[in-house]
């Protein structure tokens, strides 16, 4: 195999990885939409986007290894090194249409292996899991509001996930099969809350607003739980993002990625989950229609999984993993990575894919390029202690 850096770091990617320069001038589009998809449980990045051409890949992965492009159950080719999991056919089509960028060997600053702490770091946008007073996306909203841009956000969930918690009020919406309360009761409860418990009143009012927009987007679908199909949530997200008065930012949680045992290869447990994710992204594109052109979707997870298969045909908690950036207006069709490779000496603590791109650089890039959040604000207010994590340049624009 060629020297990995010569192979992967094309001149374009070198530009991408260069220190950030001109953010303040980036003209943010007022029509921009953003969908953050959080895969809870740690998606196996080496299964979602496999370095099929690396010799160590097949040895280390054993029964989980995916075949070369063109073979039965083989990966869907991205370039000479990487291929997508065969379940990700829609994402592959997006890649070919330059509407998908794969970011590999990415990680938050967190270096331990607890799901729960890792998710806190991912969502709070701080260096340690101890800081959980609010999420980076809420702080970004506060900055935008301060600049006169009053767009809102919605969590496709019963409650607000940490990434969206904070000073700015955020909507929640999840599919419901309950019979609506009658108008008179609702009015009385609102009055009661406004008099006795203002925090409850504002939450109830937000929920009523959200429901007015979502309508019956997912009527009859089940809500709640950690492992629900993505599609009903995506349908609702599209309704919100298309609405002229609606939020411009949506967060979707999808659980069930913790594949310690019998993970499967081209078929099996993880393959089924990936198929659901793939269908969800395609549904989002379809449902958004022309708005897809203004939309950026970022799919992230708390960390990757071990490079080697474990003793039970699964993978254990690891470090670096993969992220997907999709959307109508992005500069896609690329794998963005400072790929460390799978050689033993390159593994983190002798077992994990080594992190080479800080996920905060990706978050910053989206906020700067799509929403015009100034670099100074990104560093000061949104991601404290992130001076060494400059935005990736020209990721989406």
């Amino acid at each position: 195999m060629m020297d990995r850096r010569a192979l992967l770091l094309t001149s374009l990617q070198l530009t991408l990885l260069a220190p950030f320069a001109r953010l303040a001038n980036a003209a943010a589009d007022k029509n921009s939409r953003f969908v953050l998809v959080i895969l809870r449980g740690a998606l196996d990045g080496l299964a979602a986007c496999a370095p099929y051409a690396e010799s160590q890949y097949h040895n280390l992965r054993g029964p989980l290894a995916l075949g070369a492009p063109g073979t039965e159950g083989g990966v869907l080719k991205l370039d000479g090194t990487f291929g997508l999991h065969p379940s990700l056919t829609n994402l592959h089509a997006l890649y070919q249409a330059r509407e998908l960028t794969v970011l590999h060997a990415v990680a938050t600053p967190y270096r331990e292996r607890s799901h729960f702490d890792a998710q806190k770091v991912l969502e709070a946008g701080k260096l340690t899991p101890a800081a959980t007073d609010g999420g980076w996306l809420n702080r970004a909203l506060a900055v935008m509001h301060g600049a006169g841009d009053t767009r809102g956000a919605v969590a496709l969930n019963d409650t607000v996930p940490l990434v969206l918690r904070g000073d700015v009020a955020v909507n929640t919406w999840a599919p419901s099969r309950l019979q609506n309360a009658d108008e008179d009761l609702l009015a009385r409860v609102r009055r009661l809350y406004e008099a006795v418990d203002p925090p409850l009143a504002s939450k109830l009012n937000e929920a009523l607003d959200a429901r007015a927009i979502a309508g019956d987007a997912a009527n009859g679908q089940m809500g709640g739980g950690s492992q629900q199909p993505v599609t009903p949530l995506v349908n609702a997200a599209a309704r919100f993002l298309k609405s002229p008065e609606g939020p411009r930012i949506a967060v979707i949680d999808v659980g069930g990625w913790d594949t310690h045992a019998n993970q499967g290869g081209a078929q099996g447990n993880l393959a089924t989950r990936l198929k659901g994710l793939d269908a969800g992204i395609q549904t989002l594109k379809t449902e958004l229609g022309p708005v897809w052109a203004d939309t950026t979707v970022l799919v992230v997870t708390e960390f990757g999984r071990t490079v080697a298969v474990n003793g039970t045909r699964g993978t254990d908690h690891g470090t670096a993993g993969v992220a997907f950036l999709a959307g109508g207006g992005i500069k896609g069709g690329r794998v963005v990575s400072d790929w460390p490779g799978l050689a033993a000496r390159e593994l983190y603590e002798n077992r994990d894919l080594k992190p080479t791109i800080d996920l905060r650089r990706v978050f910053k890039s989206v906020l700067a390029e799509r929403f015009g959040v100034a670099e100074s604000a990104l560093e000061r207010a949104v991601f404290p202690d992130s001076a060494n994590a400059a935005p990736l340049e020209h990721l989406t624009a």
Partner: protein
Amino acid sequence: MLSLEAAIAANRFGLGARPQDGAAIGNDPRGWLDAQLTAAARAASPPTTQQPASAGVLLKFRDLRVARQAAAQVRASFAQGQRKAPPASANDGGNAPPASPGIDEQAIKEFREFVRENYIAQVNERHRRAIESDTPFVERLVHFWSNHFAISADKQLVGPICGLYEQEAIRPHVLGNFHTLLLAAERHPGMNLYLDNTTSMGASSGAAELARRRGRTLGLNENLAREILELHTLGVDGGYTQHDVTEFAKVLTGWSIGGQIGQRGLPGGQRAAALLGDPGKPGEFFFRPIMHEPGDKTVLGQKYKERGVSEGEQVLARLAVHPATAHHLATKLARQFVADEPPAALVDRLASIYLKNDGELVPVYRALIAADESWKEPLAKYKTPQDFVLSTFRALNFVPERPETLIPFLTEAGQRPFTPGSPAGWPDTAAAWDGGDALLKRVEWAGAVGRRVGDRRNALELASAVLPTSADERTIAGIRNAESGGQALALLIAAPEFQRR
């Protein structure tokens, strides 16, 4: 109305007041809680229905699952029009209608019903006990520890035994020593299956060697070891390393289940069975020496000599009385029963009492009851969806004829019974539950309850029986001025003083 302390005892330490509880609590709320911590009090709250043992359920589940998988395979080949699978009998072909000959529809249906019936029976038992209990503080402790040692029914293998796991591994030990509780939880098939330990084996074990001869590489799965350290004992900042996780995983290899349950990967056939030795008691904890990693291990700086199953017992015994464990458990108890941000001084006090008593739990509960911090804020916590529902039925003082009718709402509200979805269990802070959509659903559900039973209840009288004296006069006025009995009841259930505790 309930005095402030009576309301805290009934609501924050319990599952909500029944109309008659005010009299039982009287003017000694602390004594009322304390009295629940005795064996005699617990004997007064027996199970409401006879529950089967999890071992038998697991065995039946395994057999039904095998039959269903076979049937599903036949169905799949029909759907593909390939007819690879038996039987060979001719058919009209094409897209397979559900009743195609050869597909064992009965097996598929039986499996589905078995899973559903067991799940519902166990959820109902849990809810009935909670609604009827005269020792609601103990029920809360059962729920608390069951959630601390969480397993989740969204993993198919443990779906039919989540409630039985709580009955067998948690409930008997909540007033005992933490070490006993810890051992019971980690040994239970529910935990073993949930955190993948039944298939974890030492890379140098006899079982791995057998597999290697057949061209398969099998070995460790570190899931259980990591979650014991992170979630069940020391806590994530408890000072362990990746090396400790790996070594502890080796220690735990062989902790498994008797009979052929969950051991995919082990060789089959009679010859292999002879090599594998004693299969153990089907469906119960069983240590399989052949899967155990041989040799000495070092966990948290201490060396453990090769001693089979007792290595794991030794590590657990040490973890149980580790200061980090004491602090972790004290924090969680104080968060559950006092405040989302538990007072640091209280946590330290509880932790030191825990250590002084070698992990005995009742002294810690007594310290919690005795703590001034517990009685300061009347409405410091926001109810989880489950406790919101249970407290509603306690206020109404009746168990629904078909308690499974509660499951759809709990699912909507984000807390489908026995499915926290992760080994961390359900969160217990307001931020995790007080989203607007979830609140709106509570109001809608309150409306539905009001429509259903409101004309048979006097909501104003109920309010005075279950709300604290601190309840806002506008809350009471709202209930009084409602346009119907149903609306009045809905307003009581939706009231801020009923959502918080």
